[in-house]
């Protein structure tokens, strides 16, 4: 699919120990929150704590636990969502290696092993964006 575009170049931000990056859907069609089954945010090899991760789309912010039942809010193919988590990152003119892992359910493909899920990841190098 379109995994090479998951991380939007130049969108890494950090403030008071929380770090965020904009992400694009690696799939051709919109998916609801309930099908966004998990994500990991790693900067320079350090992963944000899982329970600190938050997902923002359509101006609403969710924990991944809240996304499980969210069938009303959808991630549209043209939109960036924001993945954020507790992760201190040094600001300034330093290049960081940013990695995002995503697990998505594909709700119309039901296999013998349940609803198909795909796991996609992307790694890009960038500085913290200047605000």
């Amino acid at each position, binding site marked *: 699919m379109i995994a090479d575009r998951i991380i939007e170049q130049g969108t890494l931000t950090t403030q008071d120990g929380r770090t965020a990056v904009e992400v694009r859907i690696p799939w051709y069609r919109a998916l609801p929150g*309930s099908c966004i089954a998990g994500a990991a945010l790693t900067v320079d090899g350090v992963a944000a704590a899982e329970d600190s991760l938050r997902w923002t789309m359509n101006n609403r912010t969710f924990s991944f636990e809240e996304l*499980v*039942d969210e069938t009303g809010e959808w991630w*549209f*193919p043209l939109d960036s969502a924001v993945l954020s988590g507790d992760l201190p990152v040094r600001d300034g003119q330093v290049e960081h290696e940013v990695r995002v892992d995503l697990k998505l359910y594909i709700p119309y493909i*039901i296999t*013998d092993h349940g609803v198909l899920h795909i796991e996609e990841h992307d790694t890009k190098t960038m500085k913290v964006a200047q605000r």
Partner: protein
Amino acid sequence: MTSLGTPIQGVTLYSFTRAFHARQYDLDGLIRKVAAEGFGPGLEVIGFSSLRGFPDRIDDTFVGQFRDLVAEVDLVPTSLAVNVDTGIRRDRLMNHDELVEYMRKQIEVAARLGFPIARVQISLTPDAMESLLPVAEKYGVTLALEVHADQHGAHERVLALRDRYEKLDSPLLGFTADWGATVTGFAPSLLEAYRRRGASEDLLRQVVELWDGFYAEGPPNNQKVHGERFGAFIGLAARNGRPDLGIDFGINGTGLFGPAPLDTWLEIMPWVRHVHGKFFGIDENGEEPSVPVRGLVRQLVENGYSGAISSEYEGWHWNNWQDPFEIIRGEQAVQRSAAANAGSAMITEASEARRILRSHLAQPVRG
């Protein structure tokens, strides 16, 4: 004797997924591009891909703008591809009533936007299709269930649907024939993509041999055989030290390149209401090397098919080095040439396409 068909040329915006996703074109811009390039007159759209807020938040303002634009650029809406998202909840699959309502909302949007066909998907059982028939009748929308690799026109699931259609005897229930079910070779452009990911020539030769073996054996008629073939691709990748490519080989080798013979379409031909002209690339000779486009168009023409063929380019998954618009131009030229060779022609003029589509389908859409 059946008179020769006159298929309507068209395209699905799915072919341009990479350009749309990259924000090179918004929906309006892409529709204008399709019209300007002469890829129509038929226009197919995937609701969940192209329409923000589909299906719950499609307001009358958007509907009006969409219809005005399509009229302005003189395209003909053919099919709105809708999705059977049975697995949308994490705790269980949708129940029957939820499914019918989920599909109803999408079919209603198809009617409001002026699409006479809703493309539905294989997870709908004969019982589910029967339950959706009143919805189809309410909106005047034909439900054309997509027959797509790894299945095909003679697959047990498809035959069960056909038999129910025959019993229900409604012109609003039919099929979308996707050419990916009847492919004759592993797409060379995908082999090139694997080569660029460092796959050896020896491994690629084995991938082709494995697929050719399945082609010689014939298509899977049930899910068990399908699963075994998927596993064979994974095993091949692992034995060659590239386990990272195994699932990709399996998904593409079984899910995109269906090895069914062309004549399997004859099992369901009277119920084919729409066609996905699925293809993966055009070679240096201007031909599609792995989809028998010429044979498929001839078969449709000779069987009197006068619905739309949406050119559906799927090589975009892996081919990021060629222009999809140029590739579509090449494939549609092959289709037109094939229709002429079969003694007929593709319809490329919008008013004629509207007239022919109306007579091909049972009743006008009520949107």
